[in-house]
């Protein structure tokens, strides 16, 4: 499904009740089945933007449209994969993954076959009866991804999903994500701090300025998949994105001094 973000503005109140502008008049479109990353300095508001698209937060102004229809709240067409997994500690892996289908009152046999498919997809066979606290961070995130995929979302929203993982686990999960997205079943928005990750996964990268966030630049990644991290063009694109992010930091410093 295509996402149309129209003139989104959002501010929060801090403890002294001052208004802090987080997002200012942001507009962009994401095409059906496109993979788009949001990159920018930490605290710039890209996660806030993702939460607005998910429907967890309401924008002060502007709207988010999915295939031309304005969203009114969270929905199972747009599923989020959180950085800190957000699994249910009292549910086994199987039950965590099956939860969404069970809530929708699906037929038991259907739930069983879908969950088996999802567990297979993320490679968690044999861990169905484990509880989240028994799993490593990477495996917890696999559960969270399976929990989303099992419901066949049209849009997958990922908020720094691999940020808390070690670099080997991160690379493996990135590869698996590429494989899953390759089937062209959903549109993906990824918030990340990792420029290499953004270039490795995305079709397009939106680079945000520091808060109030605005779109600084858009980088199109025109490399065929699977991509090689050592490819000169890959490194060039990564440096370009990095440079853009660092520049927004520099501007910030100049503004402060």
């Amino acid at each position: 499904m295509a996402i149309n973000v129209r003139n989104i503005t959002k501010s929060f109140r801090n403890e002294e009740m001052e208004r802090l502008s987080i997002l200012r008049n942001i507009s962009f479109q994401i095409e059906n089945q496109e993979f788009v990353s949001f990159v920018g300095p930490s605290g710039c508001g890209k996660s806030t933007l993702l939460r607005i698209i998910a429907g967890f937060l309401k924008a002060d102004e502007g709207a988010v449209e999915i295939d031309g229809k304005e969203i009114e709240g969270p929905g199972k067409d747009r599923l989020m994969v959180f950085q800190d997994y957000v699994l249910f500690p009292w549910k086994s892996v199987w039950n965590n993954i099956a939860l969404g289908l069970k809530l929708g009152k699906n037929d038991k046999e259907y739930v069983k076959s879908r969950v088996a498919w999802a567990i297979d997809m993320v490679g968690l066979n044999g861990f169905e009866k484990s509880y989240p606290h028994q799993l490593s961070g990477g495996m917890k995130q696999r559960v969270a991804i399976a929990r989303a995929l099992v419901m066949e979302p049209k849009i997958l929203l990922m908020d720094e999903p691999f940020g808390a993982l070690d670099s080997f686990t991160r690379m493996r999960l990135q590869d698996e994500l590429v494989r899953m997205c390759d089937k062209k079943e959903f549109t993906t928005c990824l918030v990340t701090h990792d420029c290499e990750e953004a270039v490795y996964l995305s079709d397009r990268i939106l680079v945000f300025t520091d808060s109030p966030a605005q779109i600084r630049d858009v980088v199109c990644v025109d490399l065929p998949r699977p991509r090689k991290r050592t490819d000169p063009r890959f490194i060039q694109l990564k440096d370009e994105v990095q440079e853009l992010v660092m520049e927004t930091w520099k501007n910030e410093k100049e503004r402060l001094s």
Partner: protein
Amino acid sequence: MKGKIKPFLQGCLAIAALVGLWALASKTGIFGKMDPEDAELLLPMPQVVCEEFWELLKSGYLLSNIWVSMKRVLVGFGIAVLIGLPLGIFMGMSVTVRNFIYPLVRFFSPIPGVAWVPLAILWFGLGDRAAIFIIVMGSLSPIIINSLQGVLNVDRSLYDALHMMEANGWQVVYHCIVPSIVPYVISGFRLGLGFAWRVVIAAEMVGVPKGLGYVLSVGRNTANTSVTIITIISLGIIMMLMEEVLFRVLENRTSKWKQWE
């Protein structure tokens, strides 16, 4: 298994030491402070108390009174749970409900359960109903407050996860709130049940007939020290057994995932 035997033996040793000290105090007239014959009256020897214990058990007097108190506690505590648990959950879920009820809870919770005895006897007469009313009043607030605290401490991102899966209100309660608050509710129940016993003993001592507190006050009025000591020992045993039966079961059920805390 070895790891369990050692603490058990140490516990037994502590009890044996206490009984030894008790026997010594009784024998020496509270360490020479009084005539040993008077001491027999104030603090009878352990074996005398044991014999009396056995007599009371055999006659059924002790057990029937324990049963009377136990029934009052269980019914009163059960009613307190039926009122307090849903109320605490609703207060946690709705700010409006919380704003209405919380001042009342804060007002009533510091009032000791025994303070309700005169009113309870006036309203319900001398009997089970008065005792049950007092127990409900005495054990309600820890149950409400702990359930409320549990709901307020639910991981908010779990709500997000459920909302994006389009869960309805009841599903949020069932899949998220109820399992989250179990540890809080257990400690609320513990406190509530403790209060319930304290209150029922006090109420039975000051007026409500029959029950363990009544046995205690009869023991006092007839200067029968053995009976009062026996009552105290029985109470200790009952509390320990209740703890094992009620809470061990609940905690075992949640131990599978509890390590996450």
